[in-house]
């Protein structure tokens, strides 16, 4: 699965109506090795700028990444 580095992130407490049940949840702008970026959901542990993350398979929200332990 794709790996990337967290370029920025936020934890959303005030969610839009469609995702109200998920709150609080984290999203991140991640950067790939070719320097392209993608906005993703973060699953599991909270991440910070500079953390390495990888994509998880068959997520409920696509795309979702998690921290590489």
């Amino acid at each position, binding site marked *: 699965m794709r790996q990337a580095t967290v*370029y*920025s*992130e*936020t*934890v*959303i*407490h*005030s*969610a*839009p*109506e*469609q*995702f*109200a049940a*998920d709150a609080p*949840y984290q*999203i*991140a*702008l991640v950067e790939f090795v070719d320097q*392209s*970026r*993608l*906005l*993703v*959901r973060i699953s599991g542990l909270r991440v910070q*700028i500079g953390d390495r993350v990888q994509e998880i398979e068959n997520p409920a*929200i*696509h*795309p979702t990444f998690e921290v590489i332990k």
Partner: protein
Amino acid sequence: MRSVYVAGIGKTAFGAFASRTLKDLALESIQSCLYDAARDKEELEAVYVGNFDSPSFTNQNHLAPYIAGAAGIQDVPATRFEAACASGGSALFHAFHAVQSGIYSNVLVCGVEKMTSQSTARVAQILAGAGDAELESAIGATFPAIFAMIARRHMYQYGTTREHLAHVAVKNHYNASLNPQAHLKKVITVEQALAGKPICEPLTIYDCSLVSDGAAALWISADPQTIRIAACAQASGPVSLAGKPDITTLNATRLAAAKAYKAAGITAQQIDLAEVHDCFTIAELIAMEDLGFIAAGESGPWVASGATGISGNLPVNTSGGLKAKGHPIGATGVAQVCDLILQMRNQAGPRQVAKADTGLAQNLGGSGATSVVTILQRK
């Protein structure tokens, strides 16, 4: 190219007005503008309406002829402009060019939004429509989330702090307390701002602008007046955050500012006061840098020093800004110009600044997909 002037201004109070309709708000701003201009509406040759999403907020579409007709401005072309939170600025930009190029000599610009009849979660959903539906809204990103990520990165790259952001909120709340037309008139402290309810980390409720109802109008004219629009420039940038090479700067604002300064024949250092798009506190800090008032990365300590207060070197958002005056989206870009003109006419009451000969307004759409910069000069 002809010189372009503002012949009249009109603005409603901003706030949450359960009993007032979109049409009612627009009409009040137009009638107030016609009264201020002391001219006959029969002279108007076109109507430019700035509005973000009346179809979603109020189920009313085809807004421009709806409003113009209600105001008794019959038969002339009436068109709505949508550029997210820069809808009002974009309507002004197009009106300015029509008069400057000689197509029309007298036009009306009206910005309006009626937002408070919807729940907060529904408003967040509607506003998210100004981002990239496929890449951003679909994973649950909101506008506060987009600007929260911009803030995090600005903090990471430049050492900007939550206290710096709080100083923007404290200043704008104080300024709004002096503005009888502001939505909130509640003075706050840095400690209160920092302890606010988290919205999208690191932003709290005090870092976010308000959901408001309101309208504003301008009579734009080729006939010489005291206030001249020296320049009005619009530029575009990527809609999605992922498309920006550096998210700590909004290139559309840099481009629009460069065009506007060139057209006006001035530099950033010649601006006496500004109304900028503080949809979030971080947006005001970044605007200081993108408009050339201060170097990249240095806005936090500069604003915290008081430089942009009413008695500072460069007063910014003396109206209270989107943060506390309120942010009825389509009205905002038009209202910013009305507020500058109140200062330039020495009609700003207790928030009056010492020198207001040259003013700048900056109106942002989305996370920088549209930016409009307007420069006003007094004769």
